[in-house]
C-alpha cells in the first residue's frame, strides 16, 4: 500500500490515507485515526460519535439480556440501563447524562438491530 508525503510545519511525513463514505482514514506516526469529510445524518447515538442523550440506541445487532431500569426512573450519568449480547460478548449500555426514563422500547430476550432506539430519556 503506498504512502503519501505530506508537509507539516516544515517536516515531510509519510502517511497512509483512504476514504470511505464521509470518513478519511489516516495512519501516521504509528497511529490510525479518522476524520469526517462531510456532514452525515446520524441515527441517534453512534460509537465514538456525538451522542443524542435523549435516545439510547443499539450500537450493533444483538439481543437484550437484561433491563436494569424502568419507565419513570431517575438515572445518573454513567448508570447502567441495560445489558445486551452480541458476538459472544455482553455489553452494558449506560446513561450518558442525568435523566429520567421516559420510554422503554425493548424487552429482555428481544433481538434488536443496529441503530434501533431502545430507551428514551428525558435529559
Amino acid at each position: 500500500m503506498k504512502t503519501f508525503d505530506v508537509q507539516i510545519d516544515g517536516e515531510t511525513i509519510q502517511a497512509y490515507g483512504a476514504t470511505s463514505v464521509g470518513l478519511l482514514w489516516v495512519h501516521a506516526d504509528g497511529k490510525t485515526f479518522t476524520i469526517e469529510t462531510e456532514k452525515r445524518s446520524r441515527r441517534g447515538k453512534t460509537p465514538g460519535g456525538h451522542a443524542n442523550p435523549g435516545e439510547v440506541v443499539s450500537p450493533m445487532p444483538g439481543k437484550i439480556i437484561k433491563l436494569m431500569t424502568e419507565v419513570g426512573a431517575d438515572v445518573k450519568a454513567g448508570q447502567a440501563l441495560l445489558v445486551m449480547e452480541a458476538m459472544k460478548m455482553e455489553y452494558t449500555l449506560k446513561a450518558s447524562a442525568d435523566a429520567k426514563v421516559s420510554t422503554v422500547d425493548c424487552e429482555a430476550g428481544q433481538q434488536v438491530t443496529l441503530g434501533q432506539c431502545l430507551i428514551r430519556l428525558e435529559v
Partner: protein
Amino acid sequence: MTLSDPTSNQNAPPTSGAAQSAAPSTFTGVRPKIMTLAIANRGEVAVRIIHACHELGIKTVLLHSEADVGTRAFRMADKKICIGPAPTAESYLLIDRNVQAAKEAGADAIHPGFGFLSENADFADAVEKAGLIFVGPRSETIRALGDKISAKHLIEKSKVPTVPGYMGADQSVETLITHAEKIGYPVIVKAAAGGGGRGMKLLRSRQDAQELIPSAQREALSAFGSAKVFLEKYLDRAKHIEFQVFGDGTGRCVHLFERECSVQRRHQKIIEEATAANLKPELRDQMAKAAVTLAETAKYRGAGTVEFLVQDDHFYFLEMNTRLQVEHPVTELVLGVDLVKAQILTAQGTFQIWKQDDLRPRGHSIECRIYAEDPYNRGLPSTGELIALHWPEGPGRRFEVGFDAGDVVTAHYDPMIAKIIVWDEDRDRAIRKMLQVLNETVIFGVRANLPYLKAILSHPEFMKGAMTTQFINSYFPEGLEPLELTPRQNKIAEALKSLVSRSGTPVSLGNSDPHVLNTKSSPWRGHWRSV
C-alpha cells in the same frame, strides 16, 4: 470414567467400509492417505489449515456459511461448499450438514479447527461413521476430557492438584455455604452446565454466600437449563499457564512446553506468549510431567492443551482442551514445528512424533489477537468493509489473516480478524518488535484494538512479566480513554484530504461506514459482483 485403550478390540465401535482402517480398535498406524481435506471452520484458522494442506499436497474443501464467501479461505480453497446461512447454529454447528457436505465433496478427512464442533464428541463420531477421518483425538477422549468435572476427577487420580472446590451432588444452600467456608474465601460459584466464563459469581464473605448462592442457582437454571452449581477457590493473582501436548495415538506423547495467556478480558485471551514470562524451572518440570502423564493415560491422538493456574509457586489443573488452540503459533515459533501438518499426518498415520529431547525452545514469541472493535469505546464490535490492509512483513514476523482488503467484517462471528505473531531472541526484544509491528500495521474500514494492545504491551507490569489474570481488570477495566486528535494529527488529515481520492467502493454493499452498517445488504450479492 475410563478412557478406552485403542489397541484392544474390547470396545471397538461399529465401523463400515472405508472407516475400517480409521477405526481406533484396528489402529496400526496404517491409514489411507488423505487426498482431500474438508475444513469445518472459518477465518484465519481456515487459512492456516489450507496452508498446511498446500504444503502436503492435499486438496482442500471449505465448508462455509453464506457470510464467509468474501474471505481469504474461500478464495484459497479448491472447493467451496455452502453449508448454511450466517448464524452459526444454522451452519457451522450443524453436524449432519458438515459431514454430508464433506462427503459429497469427496473429502477423506475433516479438520474441525477450534471452537464450533472441534470438541464435540458426537461430531467426531459422525465423521468416522461416515467413513471419513477426523483430524483430532478419538471421540471417547473428547468425551472424557470435555466434561470438565470428569476431567478433574481423572487428573486427581494422577495426584495432580486441581483448583480446590466442591462438586458434590448435595446442592442445598447450607451445604454449599459450609463448603465455601471450608475452601476459604474468595470462592467462585459456577454453573455446572455453563461455560465460556458465563454464570459465575464471586463470594468474598458468608454474607455474599448467603445472598449469591441462591441467586447463582436461579440464574444457572434460567440461562443453562440446570440449577446445578459447583464451587472453586478463586485464585486472584494467578498466571494462566498451559502446556501444548501431542500424541501419536499409540501412547507416545510429548509436551511442547508452555504458553502464558494471563492477559484476558472476561476470560477471552488477548495476548499469549511462549514460553511463560517468569516460570520457575521446577514448576515447569512438574506441570510438563503432569500434562504428558494425562495425555499418555488417554493414549492421546493429535494436539491438545493442558491448562493450569499458577499462584504462589503452586500450580492447579484447570482443564484440558482436546483441539488445536488459537495461540498455537507461539509454540511453533519457539520450537520450529508445524502443529497443523503434524495433526494431519497423525490423522493419516504417517507422523513420526518428535523426540522430547529434540524439542528445545529458543527465544521468545508473542501473539496479539486483532479484534474488530473500538478500543476507545469499551471494545464495542466494529463492522464494515476493510478498505485497506497493510501487514508489515519482516524477519521474525508472522501474520494469520482471515480477510483481504475489500472483504466485509460482519457481526455474525467472533470479532477476531487476524493474529500477529513475532519471534525474537528474548522477551524484551519480542515486546519491542511487537510494538514496532503494531505501529506499522494499517487497518482501514473497521476499528481495531491495536492501540489497546500497545497500551498493554507497554505497561510496566506486563513488561516485567508479572501480570496475572487480574491484569486487565486492574489496569484496563473500561478499555482506553476516548481519543482526542492532536493538532499534528489534524494537520496531517487536512493535508491528506486533497491528496487521497475516493476509493472505489462497490455500490451494492451500501455504505462502508463502520458506524452504520446496512445489515439488510447481503455480502454474498456484493462480492458476487466483485468476483
